[in-house]
């Protein structure tokens, strides 16, 4: 059953379409990657999926009421709040759970991402990897069904990137969530993605949809095959 359905979605700025007629279904507990060359509209498509910009045409349909958390490219933690406050704020704003239970829940989410003990620290004092983890904890604050990750590995060293990937896999398995991620890190793509869609920045349309390893061998588009075969698997 699909949790998210992209139905002929076109996205862009003004009258210029960055990607046209994107159609895909994201299944339950699936890790679905949006891949493409630089400027191909990966993040733009993600922004349309989470409602930050309207699609030029087509529809993004969630199964039931949309319930999602977002990890933005640089974390987007609110700098004036501590890590704990960052995770608690979505709960406070949405009135989720009794007020007294929120600190404990927020601490649990931080422990899940390996940040137990850093609750009172402020974003400026965290490393890049810790900031991403804190933002991930915030994205999980409201127990979303879907997690959107925009370039989760950007700015991280290979070890931190690998740890983040393992964390995403564990969260998917442990919490039963669906993950949609934008990435151009092929190592990360092969490690965690069940399926992917490749957005061609020159053709302004998707040119491949499927399992990464299979597409690397047999995608119709040569560009996709070349792109995917650059990773050392």
């Amino acid at each position, binding site marked *: 059953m699909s949790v998210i359905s992209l139905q002929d979605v076109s996205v862009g700025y003004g009258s210029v379409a960055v990607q046209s007629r994107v159609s895909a279904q994201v299944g339950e507990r699936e890790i679905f990657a949006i891949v493409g060359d630089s400027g191909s509209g990966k993040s733009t498509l993600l922004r349309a999926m989470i409602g930050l910009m309207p699609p030029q045409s087509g529809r993004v349909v969630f199964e039931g009421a949309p319930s999602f958390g977002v990890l933005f490219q640089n974390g987007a933690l*609110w700098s004036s709040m501590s890590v704990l406050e960052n995770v608690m704020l979505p709960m*406070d704003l949405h009135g989720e759970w009794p007020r007294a239970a929120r600190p404990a829940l927020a601490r649990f989410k931080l422990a899940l991402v390996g940040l137990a003990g850093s609750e009172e620290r402020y974003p400026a004092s965290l490393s890049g990897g810790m900031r991403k983890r804190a933002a991930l904890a915030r994205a999980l604050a409201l127990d979303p069904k879907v997690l959107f990750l925009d370039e989760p590995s950007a700015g991280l060293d290979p070890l931190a990137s690998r740890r983040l990937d393992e964390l995403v896999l564990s969260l998917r398995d442990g919490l039963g969530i669906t993950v949609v991620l934008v990435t151009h890190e092929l190592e990360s793509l092969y490690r965690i993605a069940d399926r992917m869609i490749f957005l061609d920045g020159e053709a302004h349309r998707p040119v491949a949809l499927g399992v990464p390893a299979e597409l690397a061998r047999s995608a119709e588009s040569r560009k996709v095959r070349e792109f995917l075969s650059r990773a050392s698997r």
Partner: protein
Amino acid sequence: METRLKPLRPQAGELVVAVPENGIDPSWLARPLAQLGLEEAGPYATVRVQPPASWRWGSADAAFFARLVAELQPPGRKLALQGLPPELDKLLALARGAAPSAAHRSAKPPGIRARLGVAALDTADEARAFVALLGEVILLLPRFLCARAKIRRAELVEVLAESSSRALAIVAVTNLLMGAILAFVGAVQLKTFGAGIYVANLVGIASVRELTPILTAIVLSGRTGASFAARIATMQGNEEVDALTALKVSAVEFLVLPRVVALGLLMPLLYAYGCAFALLGGLAVATPLLDLSATAYAAQTQLALKPVQFAIGGLKALVFGGLVALIGCHYGLRAARSAAGVGAATTSAVVAAIVGIIVLDAVFAVCANALKV
């Protein structure tokens, strides 16, 4: 001599380029091809390069051949370059791949009318967005008054502190000096008519009714309004505003509303505080200059100032406060997601707030005159 300066030689449908011993002269890049020997514009299917024996080419050589290709290539056909070393040919292929489209090349810079039109449309768009923001804030005010608005108390307290206690010193100094200057100028002039005592009226009415609200608002626009714009613009760049929107929390409710309310509430208080310092500044200068006692000056001030003067000044302060906060937040929310965007938002917020304060003050003056107050 002249023939040596012309390295381009059309020959039987092709163009021959004789590269000098030291490579292409960089000055050729800026000269029209006709001056380099291209007598007929073509079309040419082939450019044949005659390289020197030991050619150590550089970027000027590559740029020259890229220019030849860009200018001479017939539409829809490829111009063949023969005789180039393979490495240089590869380099040119890279440049060809990145060549701008024909439409882009032919786009002329917009003329003055087009630029004026774009500026007018941008201004209209800006004004429309500002009015929309104002409307949204007005619609949210009842939620705030019923304590149902999605705001963070700590944020509200921080904004209150930022706009009040930390602004006290600068508001005091500017108003004190403004009162003193008014008194000095008034005393010098009025003394000659034997009307020195009326300096108290001048300082009192001018400060309470006009200058203290304006000066305090201008100080706050440079201090607090700019800080609002910079803070929100930075949040915009860091995707913090997107993070709120993704949580289905209105950025206007969470970020703008507390700031507008805080500054709207604080400005009347800062106004009263500023008035006290302005009157004190007038007293401190006028009494020694005019040989007046402080009691006489204070009594004259009391006679001059009616409650309606304070009411007008206080109302102006409230409106100016809201305006400064709204403008700061407006430019912050519309800032480009870059460091330059933060700078531009801050500057625009201060300039627009100062202009807005003066314009609104003029509106107040017209209304007060019409109402005969």
